């Protein structure tokens, strides 16, 4: 029974992907004179060289962090969208530590990441506090705080960390001691991937094998019940968001330390929203976060390669991404057939039971 269902899920997903691909192909037919090549770039481009596959892994790193962060907050039924702002501010505070030229290796990135994480924790903690104290919707306040984060971050860079000798609004150079080492030669895949993997594993254990994770999940599923069971729901609500913020903030820090020479974002990088996509695709289960993150990263890189090397407009990739995401997350897609399967199965067991 379970096996059949799993098989069905697989078939369903494959079919959804196929349909999405057909939609993609139709769109590409519109936009391209060489649709076959474009599609093959899109599908297999990420696999055609180590560097391109490295790009997928690079992109996965921030997605793993924000995906995990969002899934923890959503697990507590806290629709905090602040991962975006936390990631950005995490990058900024990490920068403020990383531009310091007098710290030791190893210690330096650790301090920077901690700084980023703490900022993220603080940032996502504020909507949590407002929620607990005054019942202000965390969805709305975090959405607004994201804008505040952007402008605050820009101010900090502009007035405190800007390298006036640089020709753009960028921070001073990050010290070499602060950088995360590259772990796969010929790619930019950095130590952050290992950190991300560890964080996701820890996240899984945390959510499903510790008392705190249990409390978060229980509060998210039914907070009245959680309270009745003796759980301090207010602190759980805060914990989930502070933790989510910490992870998102560290993610921002790690992204900067692993991928950049200087801090140079001038707008929110969007990984928070991507994190929501990943978390929902993974149904808030940390164990599935890598799958969701890989899927999204592969999609993005494939689409980029296609836009870059064929005549497909780069904007088309947004359309393809949107369609793919929606179809794959469509739970009732083919539900009809699924039910038939269930029904037949139930009849069979009933018959054999008799």
């Amino acid at each position, binding site marked *: 029974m379970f096996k059949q269902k799993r098989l069905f899920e697989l078939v369903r997903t494959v079919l959804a992907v196929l349909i999405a691909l057909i939609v993609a192909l139709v769109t590409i037919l519109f936009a391209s004179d060489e649709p076959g090549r474009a599609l093959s770039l899109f599908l297999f481009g990420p696999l055609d060289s180590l560097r391109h596959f490295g790009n997928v892994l690079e992109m996965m790193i921030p997605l793993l962090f924000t995906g995990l962060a969002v899934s923890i907050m959503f697990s507590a039924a806290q629709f905090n969208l602040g991962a975006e702002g936390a990631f950005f501010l995490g990058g900024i505070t990490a920068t403020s530590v990383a531009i310091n030229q007098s710290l030791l290796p190893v210690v330096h990135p650790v301090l920077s990441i901690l700084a980023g994480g703490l900022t993220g924790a603080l940032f996502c903690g504020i909507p949590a506090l407002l929620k607990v104290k005054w*019942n202000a919707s965390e969805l709305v306040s975090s959405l607004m*705080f994201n804008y*505040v984060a952007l402008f605050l971050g820009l101010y900090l860079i502009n007035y405190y960390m800007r390298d006036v000798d640089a020709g753009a609004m960028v921070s001073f150079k990050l010290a070499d001691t602060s950088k995360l080492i590259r772990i796969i030669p010929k790619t930019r895949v950095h130590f952050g991937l290992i950190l991300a993997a560890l964080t996701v594993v820890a996240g899984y254990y945390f959510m499903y094998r510790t008392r705190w994770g249990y409390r978060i999940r229980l509060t998210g599923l039914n907070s009245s019940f959680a309270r009745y069971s003796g759980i301090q729901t207010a602190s759980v609500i805060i914990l989930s968001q502070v933790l989510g913020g910490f992870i998102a903030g560290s993610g921002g820090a790690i992204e900067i330390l692993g991928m950049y020479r200087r801090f140079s974002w001038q707008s929110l990088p969007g990984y928070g929203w991507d994190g929501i996509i990943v978390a929902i695709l993974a149904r808030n289960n940390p164990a599935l976060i890598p799958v969701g993150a890989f899927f999204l990263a592969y999609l993005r890189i494939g689409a980029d390669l296609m836009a870059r090397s064929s005549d497909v407009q780069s904007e*088309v990739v*947004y359309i393809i991404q949107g369609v793919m995401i929606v179809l794959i997350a469509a739970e009732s897609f083919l539900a009809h057939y699924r039910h038939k399967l269930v029904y037949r199965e139930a009849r069979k067991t009933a018959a054999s039971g008799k």
Partner: protein
Amino acid sequence: MADFFNIIFSVDFGYAVLRVTTPILFAAMGALISDKAGVINIALEGMMLISALTGVIMSALSHSAGLGLLGAVIVGALVGMVLAYFALNLKTDVILAAIAINLIAMGGTVFVLFMVGGDKGISSSLASKVLPRIDIPLIRSIPVLGPILSGHNILTYLAFLSVWVMYIFIYRTPLGLRIRAVGENADAADSVGISVRKIQYTALILSGALAGFGGAYMSMGYVSWFSKNMTAGRGFIALAAEAMGGATPHGAMFTSLLFGMFDALSNSLQTLRVPAEFIQMIPYLATVIGLVIYAANKTEQIKRIQAHQNREARKGAQEVKLL
């Protein structure tokens, strides 16, 4: 400081507030109607963007601003329907489906603009129309208020009218009653033969249509062209305004105006000697503060009402008993 007050109490400022508020108000009404039916619509941003482009293309093709508006509204409604199809029929998580729509809107509008106008950034090659401004003869002659209230784009008046219409619609008509019932207790609505799905479809389609008005205002009223990503987060702000306004038409209008006021203020205050980043933060911070004050008040109020109700309920129970 004198400058500050000069700015706030100027006629131009008052006029600007209404202008800034208009698109947010439309989208907030869109947020409201779907919220009432129990579905959160964070695709407003994308819907507005798509409609903004549609308005420009349609008006350029038809040489009529009215048809442009019609096109924008219809396409907004269609996007609402697509969202409904995914969320209600295919059971895609509604937040995810909405994010996907926003993504598609962001790239799709530029793509379509490129296909239609051969340009990726702005629709200046399309001779699109703008919706007219309206002078209201009587009101215009009122001192001070006159110039603030008169001479706006027709959609500005429509936006404020929509608040009233929405109020009547939600609280006085059968469909409104059903929408509220579905939003509050879908099972109950289902059990009396109301199709929950149909109602939520209706709400999302209306929500899209309202976002369509907002989008049309952006490209055919506020400015006279479509440019990439021109809604710049107004759909999200509308969402915040609706929540902050306690999910009532008038509340949402009030908070939209509040946001409009702070936004207009931040636009005017740039000349103050404060880093621009801080001024740019004002509207968002003000929204959060407003939200907190509102929510805190409401929590208090609910507590009081609940207590009252409990008491009444108990009294009722006893009366029944003694019958």
